[in-house]
């Protein structure tokens, strides 16, 4: 297997240039898809036979909730890479993605509460699913707090990598909470191995908004990483050259 891409990823300079090309594209294509999915879902997709229009919040809740977990998984992998290979970009990635994931987890909690009130009859209940997602949000807060509280950058990167990696244990708990325990939250509508239990005109807009949101988050993360790379490599010659040639 060819590992050059993996070693290239270790070079901040190479990443910076690669992200200059792809960051913007991801953001704009992502925003367009997200807009299509959300307008389609909120305005044109059919109602649910039981919940009526309040079911439409699924077009925001599900993509955001799935992305919140994906971001943390990616941070966990980056934490592992950071601890074992000590790649320069891995801690940059964790630091840049954590706030994105935290916002997604927060929107998932808030949109879930807004959905819960009309359907379940309550904003919040301490069931396993809701609580484990709250823990996910707090883990994000922890990662961000540690990163900002420690002055020694090398030490902060290490601590954050450990927290990211250990926090991954929470992800299977979130996923299987609805199967292992009695919860108010229903089981997952979408499984990788089965056909979704809703008709196509309902899940297609969801697919659009999910892919759009992923691309958008990827692009925003690349932008954030570029800024962080510039900060950390500010003494390197290529950064001086880059800034003199293109500005910031």
């Amino acid at each position, binding site marked *: 297997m060819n590992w050059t891409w993996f070693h290239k990823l270790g070079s901040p300079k190479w990443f910076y240039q690669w992200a200059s090309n792809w960051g913007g594209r991801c953001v704009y294509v992502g925003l367009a898809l997200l807009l299509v999915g959300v307008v389609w879902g909120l305005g044109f997709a059919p109602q649910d036979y039981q919940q009526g229009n309040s079911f439409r919040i699924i077009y925001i809740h599900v993509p955001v909730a799935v992305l919140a977990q994906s971001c943390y998984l990616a941070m966990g992998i980056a934490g592992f890479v950071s601890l074992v290979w000590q790649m320069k970009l891995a801690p940059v990635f964790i630091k840049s993605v954590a706030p994105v994931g935290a916002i997604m987890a927060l929107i998932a909690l808030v949109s879930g509460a807004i959905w819960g009130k009309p*359907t379940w009859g309550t904003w919040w209940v301490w069931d396993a699913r809701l609580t484990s997602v709250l823990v996910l949000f707090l883990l994000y807060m922890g990662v961000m707090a540690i990163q900002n509280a420690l002055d020694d950058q090398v030490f902060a990167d290490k601590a954050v990598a450990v927290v990211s990696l250990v926090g991954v244990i929470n992800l299977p708990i979130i996923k299987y909470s609805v199967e292992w325990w009695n919860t108010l939250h229903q089981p997952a509508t979408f499984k990788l191995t089965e056909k979704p239990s809703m008709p196509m005109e309902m899940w297609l807009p969801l697919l659009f908004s999910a892919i759009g949101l992923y691309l958008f988050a990827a692009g925003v993360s690349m932008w954030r990483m570029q800024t962080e790379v510039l900060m950390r490599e500010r003494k390197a010659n290529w950064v001086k050259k880059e800034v003199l040639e293109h500005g910031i």
Partner: protein
Amino acid sequence: MHPVRKKRIVTISVILVVLATAIGLVMYALSQNINLFYSPTQVEAGEAPQGVTLRAGGMVVENSVERASDSLNVAFRVTDYKHSLRIEYKGILPDLFREGQGIVAQGKLDERGVLIASEVLAKHDEEYMPPEVSAALEQSKAQ
């Protein structure tokens, strides 16, 4: 692979496995506390304490809902398809409450084994469909 990296991977894996096992055991031990509600079978088996606020849930049994004509009192049975439990409640039920629908009720068990509920929440399943599809399904079921 470099021996130092190999050693790091082994150390990290061991720590993760130990942590995951520890958390798994804790959650297994606490599973009764993590469960949001008791099922009718658990109540029947006497696992649910009397006179303490707790939650019980299940599917509302068809034709079991009795509404008082002069008050908001309502009584119904919930089932997990093995046992059933009678629930009495005074108040407005959530919109999604209907026969055959999953619900979770919070309240206290009295000496008759009836749950006197102070709050009823509706559960819904992971199936979504447009009203026309559901109507067509009902129709084909009736035929």
